[in-house]
């Protein structure tokens, strides 16, 4: 992709190459400075066909540079472009220090060819939708809003800040989607590290993979994966921010790191705190205490708050003979989430809440051998994730917040004072071997071990005993092996990735399907499963501005812990579960026109069998079972266009046609070819952004933006195909059925700006969300906040 920069003056001062110890295969890193030696941020560094942008401390890093001669180009607004060439041999690990000098002489506008790291990921052979969080980190917006603007991705969140998010990718959601932090599965972090609470500042970007995953993400995902890539830390860096918003929202944090002069040591921390009352108004049925009839009113949520604290500190030994990096990190979080209502907004709760906390020490080791041909990346962590659910109130609240005492405990159906402990060990090994400049072999292995037990004085007991069902320990081990072969042909125009994966799990627990029956030795279960998966991805670069890519995958998703063990409340175990399996294919094309217009079109096909769903058995118990088969296709279209010097517009749309099939039960034959229920099938985004320098004074910058999101109506439950809305792609009117279960068309308009003060260190961001104050819903019509205002102050050093 071409990026145009208006340059005012360019002077090249120093170009210094430092040969250092080998670090990673083909890695080149370094720093960009001004002529005064100050770090220069946002400079575009291009080496060969890859590029990146320098961080606020001037640092940059590009990996996977094959041996050979490469052109290097560095450009930045206000500085002269530097161009030269470098020779890289297999054993080289290059460190560059480049100084640029402004001369104040205005020159003509030039085009710079280059791709940021984020752009590179976008152009991977395995397609990823990339949310460039760093580029918008000064906006007073949220990760969930950012992701909802992305092609083919929906974040379904049933409330305000901190409410549990669920990402939907190509119509698949829930446990079919796996989450990673920098390539490491993060199940062990519970709710403490997710897109609902993370501030933009701590992430470099988010990679959303649809279907096929790179082998480095070792998981049994079926629908896709989300990789949260932390902000790169090199040199000295400080980033502090504070956001205040409607509904008593406060978000504050600091990210800081430092590197020793000899770059042998690095240390840093990130701390953030979120608080929101989330006391927006929602349309709910309010019961008249006399007549018992419901009257629908807009009531303020009074027990919907969220608060969490997250902290992480690391110290790293690097550039050693025995390690490129050895990083010891300790992360911890504590969160509290009030529960205003049950799954549907039928009742008001005033005291029920959940808590979660953990402290996670982790170790990461990276080292390359054999002149950089062989690289090893090892991660290990152990933690005890503690989860509490508190619902002990002797009484109930109404929507006015009035309390009425009574004799039974609990606001929900499940009175609880539970403590659940999950002791988890995670090991992840990634080994890469560069066979030759165009061929690479990767191996990845992830081992997860979890042991769960707990207590709940108000929870169920085994019949005739005082044994707390929650105290019964269950164990779960999962191993995911992956191997991939990367190969470039035709002068790197053609890139092929062939991957094989092997999954294995063991689980043990108690098949206490009925809490009313006594448990004996015969009820203990040990189950295991082994599965193979294979994937193939191909990308062909037709021209420097256009490429086509496709992938094909046959994969499995193993039963998760809760699906096997139940939750010891309503969900009872099922050790008979089979893995879900899916055949996924995708084909995409991307082209950039004249450096200002980028168009990307993708289509996908999915055929998934044995979807695991929660179904009732004997009321009130439910159990996860292999139920439905889903297949279908869809397409995304994404357009990004700089239509004027200061203006850029973007738009994307996703349409997906996922339908049930293979149903043989006579009374359910009508569901064959019906859309997958409770799954949006069309959504679109459009946005426009302006970007002006020198608005109020020299060297300031003002960016303003407006983003619009549309989601087509969908239905909570299955409707026959012949009754679906008509028109092109089913986008006209409503379904031809009188339904109480329709989620209507939704329109969301957000607008805001960011202003960078001339010093370059301070940014001011403001945003109005849901500007039109429309009713927005998710998850069984649970309402989301109306219009809200947010202001953010950032300081970057």
């Amino acid at each position, binding site marked *: 992709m071409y990026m145009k920069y208006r340059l005012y003056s360019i002077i090249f001062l120093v170009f210094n190459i430092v040969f250092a110890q080998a670090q990673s295969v083909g890695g080149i890193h370094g720093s960009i400075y001004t002529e005064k030696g100050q770090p220069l941020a946002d400079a575009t560094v291009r080496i060969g066909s890859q590029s990146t942008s320098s961080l606020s401390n001037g640092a940059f890093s590009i990996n996977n540079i094959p041996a050979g001669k490469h052109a290097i180009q560095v450009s930045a607004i206000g500085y002269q472009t530097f161009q030269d060439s470098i020779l890289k041999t297999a054993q080289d690990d290059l460190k560059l220090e480049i100084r640029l000098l402004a001369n104040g002489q205005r020159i003509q506008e030039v085009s710079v060819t280059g791709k940021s790291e984020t752009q590179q990921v976008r152009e991977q052979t395995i397609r990823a939708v990339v949310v460039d969080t760093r580029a918008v980190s000064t906006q007073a917006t949220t990760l969930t809003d950012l992701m909802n603007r992305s092609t083919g991705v929906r974040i379904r969140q049933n409330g305000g800040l901190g409410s549990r998010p669920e990402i939907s990718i190509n119509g698949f959601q829930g446990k079919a989607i796996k989450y990673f932090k920098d390539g490491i599965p993060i199940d062990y972090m519970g709710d403490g590290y997710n897109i609902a609470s993370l501030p933009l500042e701590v992430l470099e970007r988010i990679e959303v993979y649809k279907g096929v995953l790179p082998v480095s993400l070792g998981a049994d995902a079926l629908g896709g994966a989300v990789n949260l890539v932390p902000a790169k830390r090199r040199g000295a860096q400080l980033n502090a921010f504070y956001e205040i918003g409607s509904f008593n929202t406060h978000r504050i944090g600091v990210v800081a790191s430092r590197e020793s002069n000899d770059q042998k040591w690095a240390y840093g921390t990130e701390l953030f705190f979120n608080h929101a009352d989330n006391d927006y108004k929602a349309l709910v*049925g309010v*019961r008249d*205490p*006399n*007549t*018992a*009839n*419901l009257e629908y009113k807009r009531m303020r949520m009074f027990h919907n708050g969220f608060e969490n604290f997250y902290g992480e500190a690391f110290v790293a030994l690097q550039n050693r003979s025995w390690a490129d990096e050895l990083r010891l990190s300790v992360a911890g979080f504590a969160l509290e989430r009030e529960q205003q209502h*049950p799954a*549907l907004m039928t*009742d008001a709760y005033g005291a029920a809440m959940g808590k979660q906390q953990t402290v996670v020490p982790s170790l990461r080791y990276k080292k390359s051998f054999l002149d950089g041909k062989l690289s090893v990346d090892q991660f290990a962590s152990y933690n005890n994730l503690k989860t509490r659910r508190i619902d002990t109130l002797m009484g*109930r609240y109404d929507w006015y917040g009035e309390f*009425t005492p*009574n*004799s*039974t405990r*609990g*606001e*929900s*159906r*499940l009175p609880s004072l539970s403590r659940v402990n999950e002791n988890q060990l995670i090991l992840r090994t990634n080994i890469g071997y560069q066979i030759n400049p165009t061929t690479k072999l990767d191996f990845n292995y992830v081992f997860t071990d979890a042991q769960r037990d707990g207590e709940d004085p*108000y*929870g*169920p007991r085994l019949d005739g005993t005082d044994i707390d069902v929650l105290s019964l320990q269950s164990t779960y081990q999962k191993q995911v092996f992956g191997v991939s072969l990367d190969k470039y042909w035709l002068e790197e125009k053609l890139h092929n990735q062939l991957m094989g994966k092997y999954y294995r799990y063991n689980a043990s627990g108690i098949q206490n*399907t*009925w809490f*009313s*029956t006594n448990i004996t030795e015969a009820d203990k279960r040990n189950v295991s499963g082994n599965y193979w998966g294979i994937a193939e991805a191909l990308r062909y670069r037709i021209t420097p501005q256009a490429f086509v890519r496709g992938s094909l995958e046959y994969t499995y998703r193993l039963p998760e812990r809760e699906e096997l063990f139940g939750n010891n*409340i*309503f969900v009872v175990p*099922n050790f*008979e579960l089979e893995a879900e399996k899916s055949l996924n294919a995708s084909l995409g094309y991307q082209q950039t026109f004249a450096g200002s217009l980028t168009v990307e079109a993708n289509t996908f096909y999915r055929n998934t069998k044995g979807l695991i769903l*929660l*179904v*009732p*058995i*004997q*009321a*009130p118990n*439910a159990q996860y079972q292999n139920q439905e088969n889903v297949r279908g296709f869809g397409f995304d279209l994404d357009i990004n266009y700089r239509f004027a010097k200061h203006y850029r517009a973007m738009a994307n749309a996703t349409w997906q046609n996922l339908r049930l099939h293979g149903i043989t*039960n*006579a*009374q*359910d*034959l*009508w569901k064959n070819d019906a859309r997958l229920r409770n799954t949006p099938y069309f959504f679109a985004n459009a946005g426009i952004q302006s970007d002006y320098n020198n608005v109020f004074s020299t060297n300031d910058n003002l960016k303003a933006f407006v983003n619009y999101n549309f989601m087509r109506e969908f*239905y*909570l*439950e*299955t*409707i*026959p195909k012949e*009754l679906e809305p008509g028109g092109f792609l089913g986008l006209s009117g409503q379904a*031809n*059925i*009188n*339904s*109480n*279960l329709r989620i209507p068309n939704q329109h969301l308009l957000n607008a805001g700006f960011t202003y960078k003060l001339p010093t370059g260190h301070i940014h001011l961001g403001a945003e109005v969300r849901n500007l039109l104050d429309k009713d927005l819903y998710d998850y*069984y019509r649970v309402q989301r906040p109306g219009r809200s205002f947010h202001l953010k102050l950032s300081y970057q050093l």
Partner: protein
Amino acid sequence: MKSLTLKTGLLAVAMATLFTGCSDDDTPGPGNHGTDKYVLITMSENNLNKPGFATAFDALPTGSIVNNSSQSKQGMGFGGWRPYGNWLLKMFSMESNALGIERLKVDADRTISSDKFIATADNKTNGSGNFAIVNETSGYYWDGAKPLAIQTFNPTAMSRTGEIDLTAAVNERGENEADIKFRSIGQKFLAVKGGKLYANITYAKTDGPQKGFWDDFYEDVYIAVIDIATNKYEKTIKIEDTGSIAYINDNHMYDFDTNGDLYIVTQGRSALGGKSKISRIKANETDVDKTWGLNMDDIQTGGKFVSVFAKDGKIITVIPNTALIPGGEGVGNINFEDIWEFYSIDIASKARTKISGIPAVTNPGAAFCAIEIDGKVLLRVNTKDGSKNGYYQLNGTQATELFNVTAGGSVSGLYKITVEN
């Protein structure tokens, strides 16, 4: 259901009017001047929200029926009807499956919509919304928010009118018994007969999410008798040596014979049955008839009763052909296996006759196993493979298929009302 109204003298005229079309004799419910509609409901998924469809037909359906057409209504809480007179009533709201009493209305053009809803203050305790109607202006229901009281309501206005505190009646036994964790009255069984309201008293060993179900403290089931005219508690009667009276959904698990005798299901000691019975309170009596009872243990070891229909001295019910097994699909057999067979039982002799021409079916659950419409006794049929899913008409002990629902889900109720033109 026909029986509740037919056997209460107060409403005999009402049902006569219903069955004969237009009449100047007003009966409970709106719209008796008009055309008949046969409203069929099906459940499209077997999940706890009970989503499904309802369709109003102009005539009693026959042949192959689609219940999710453009004329259908989609909603939740479609496990079954608990109708009364000319009213379509059920215990769960279409909007959200919330507990309470919902009345639906049907327009002349067959459009179905929610009419009015009485919400219980307690939307978490099974049995909230359990109700019985006396006449068009008087009814009773239970609300878990006040488990020791019975709420009163006006069925025409569909609004609560007050409550009767029955704490003293409940506390006649076990008041100081520490192992009784939960007490309620009317949670699972409310019936109106001969000017009396009959309400079960729950003494439960648990106070958790299943309180009141399969957790009886006593081995006898207690029923309070309340005088409807005065709303005064009179006495407590009991069904001996059984457990788990009725259930918590639209299938109230009792029925009135043509002569007014009341037949009551108790499911037994656990969800797997054991000591399950059908007991009787005779038309002119206010106590359980100790001289008569059907005991499932005498019929099928490890079985239980789950539904009852009484007419002309016969009981129609389903009896499992094997012992019940706990567990979900593929493991257990209680709900979704074809083990339930239709029988006609002569009340006087207790002689059972297996009804022919009809397959073994799945558990009717919240649906009544048998209903009466237009003088026809109809049996609800749903087989595991879905090949049979509709109603059969009973003639003697021979059943013949009336209609089969091919789309919309498992059939869970059928009722006839008259709507205004």
